[in-house]
């Protein structure tokens, strides 16, 4: 039971890192970014290839940087020119990007699934009570906590974080205070996609790499983001925790309907509170 809760935390952690990138991008650009799943996938593949040269951690850094650059490009080429267009237009453009990315990844890396080993010294197991638990899984939880903590501290206590919070609620007023909100968006979208890259690399020792891995996590992270309340960091954190547990405990106790539980959770939350757990940054 305890181990299952821990497993729920691992999955929640992974979902959180993917989702929080979506939240950042939604906050500043009001775009539900379908390409995010593609970024997660590209991150995993980029990390995989870079790891051959630089090792796992080097690969992680390369993937994060590459994805950050892609995000900056995305904001510059897509989000900024389209900021006054209908949001659905931007959403569909990101959908198109996802399609292209899946195809390109398949072109470069092939349709075969690839796998990555957990890096030393996290490749072993640790004794928890009388059960062995993979150390790497604990690392995933730790990374998720570090991301959550880092983001929270950054948003709460740094000047840039204050700008991000303000800009996502009222970009014009924030601009009036001398904040270049376009540049801010550029870097925040970059940060969001870098987090997608990070999650892709972090996921790769757990999950097989395949061109379809992006869309398979995309829907689950949408569920997290929408259940948490669009644009809410705390909401995404709580929703990821909840969905991680619902998902895992569902498999243990009600295996036949487990896959429907996160969807139903989201439906129920939206019926009770159409804005999700939280309204805005909190």
């Amino acid at each position: 039971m305890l181990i299952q809760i821990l497993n729920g935390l691992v999955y929640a952690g992974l979902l959180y890192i993917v989702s929080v990138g979506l939240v950042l991008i939604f906050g500043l650009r009001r775009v539900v970014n379908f390409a995010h799943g593609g970024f997660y996938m590209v991150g995993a593949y980029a990390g995989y290839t870079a790891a051959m040269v630089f090792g796992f951690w080097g690969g992680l850094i390369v993937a994060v940087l590459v994805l950050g650059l892609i995000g900056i490009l995305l904001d510059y080429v897509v989000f900024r020119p389209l900021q006054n267009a209908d949001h659905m237009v931007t959403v569909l453009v990101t959908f198109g990007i996802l399609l292209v990315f899946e195809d390109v990844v398949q072109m470069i890396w092939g349709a075969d699934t690839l796998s990555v080993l957990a890096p030393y010294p996290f490749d072993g197991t640790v004794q928890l009570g009388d059960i062995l638990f993979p150390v790497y899984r604990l690392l995933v939880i730790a990374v998720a906590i570090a991301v959550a903590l880092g983001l929270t501290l950054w948003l709460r206590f740094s000047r840039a974080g204050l700008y991000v919070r303000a800009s996502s609620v009222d970009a014009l007023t924030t601009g009036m205070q001398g904040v270049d909100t376009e540049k801010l968006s550029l870097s925040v979208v970059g940060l969001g996609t870098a987090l997608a890259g990070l999650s892709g690399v972090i996921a790769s020792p757990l999950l097989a790499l395949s061109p379809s891995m992006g869309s398979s996590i995309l829907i689950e992270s949408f569920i997290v983001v929408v259940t948490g309340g669009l644009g809410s960091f705390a909401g995404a954190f709580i929703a990821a925790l909840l969905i991680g547990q619902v998902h895992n405990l569902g498999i243990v106790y009600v295996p036949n309907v487990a896959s429907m539980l996160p969807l139903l959770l989201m439906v129920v939350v939206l019926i009770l509170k159409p804005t999700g757990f939280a309204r805005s940054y909190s």
Partner: protein
Amino acid sequence: MRTTKLYAGVAAAAFLIAAGASSAADATIKIGVATALTGAYGDLGQQVKRAVDFAVEEVNAKGGIDGRKVETQYQDTQAKADIARQQAEKLVNDGFTILTGSIASGEALGIAPMLERWDAVMMGTVPKADALTGAECSPRFFRANIPDYADAATVGTWLKEQSEKKWAIMGSDTAWGRNSGASFTKTASGLTRDIVAEGYAGLGTNDFAPYIQKILDSGAEGVWVALAGRDAINFAQQAKQFGLIDKLKVAGVSFVTDNTVKTLGDVSKGIYGIINYSSTLDTPANKAFVDAWAKKYPGTLPANFEGETYLGMQVLFAGIDKADSTSPEDIAEALEGIETDTIIGKISVRQADHQFVRGNFFGRIEDQDGTLRPVVATSVAADVAMPAADDACKL
């Protein structure tokens, strides 16, 4: 505007007619391959494509079948049943009335009922659903590979030699995963083994940890795995991290194939499994095949589905030869009851359900000549490996 539209219309019509006209020539044998070139099963589709290309090139190099060259056309199904059906119909309409290539059982199940209406014939080499040669069998559908229910016989041969009493099942929550789990349960209980845990994960499951933990908690000594493709790799990788693979005896179907081994590396070492085809089979015909394969695709050995697809092609070509016709109806008739030599030995095609009666294998992943690959440990003869045809099939 109206004139522009008119021109466009004329151009389109001319194009369409030209496209249609090309199907008039029938000197060649036209094989239409509707397979998953992209999507979740894209890697399997690519295997099918390699094998078909190989077989066709080989037969054409020998001058074709009865002097007729073989021609292929591919269409991508993304392993989706509705698209597969459309693509198959498209191939048939273009004159490619000999079909193959389905990956998911759903694809073949969607196409099979249409074969008579289309006047086509189909050779299944990958889909394992029992129904294809059972309740949903078709006079025009043939199966080269081994259906789920038949794997049980092979499992039984292996299982009775294993000392482990408590077993768990980790299956894909799909028809074949469930079927495989059910037939393993039946086999196991016949051999006084207990099933202590069962889990079926949906296609594309990311995190297998809850299933793995459940198996570990159950005290199982062995686990039967019916997962394929990305799911198999996800499970194996995570099971390794939890120490499950080292602690328990692991065996499965479609779980450890050449492809998964390539991806998993050392993780897969020692895993048992049903091997429907292995390049390590020690027959002269197979050796020749493996050598020729390595020439066409340097540095590779034919993998599971590649071997099975090639096997299907061998029998198909024999049938066409026997029929001495390109008519699907004649070919179907010729295939019924045919007996021919293949890379795994003599094979006959059962009249009752159009299933190939053939041997099956059990083996484990071992290091052979410095590479990890499935190595056959137990060969099961055709009469044991292929139980009697399903009564539900009425041809």
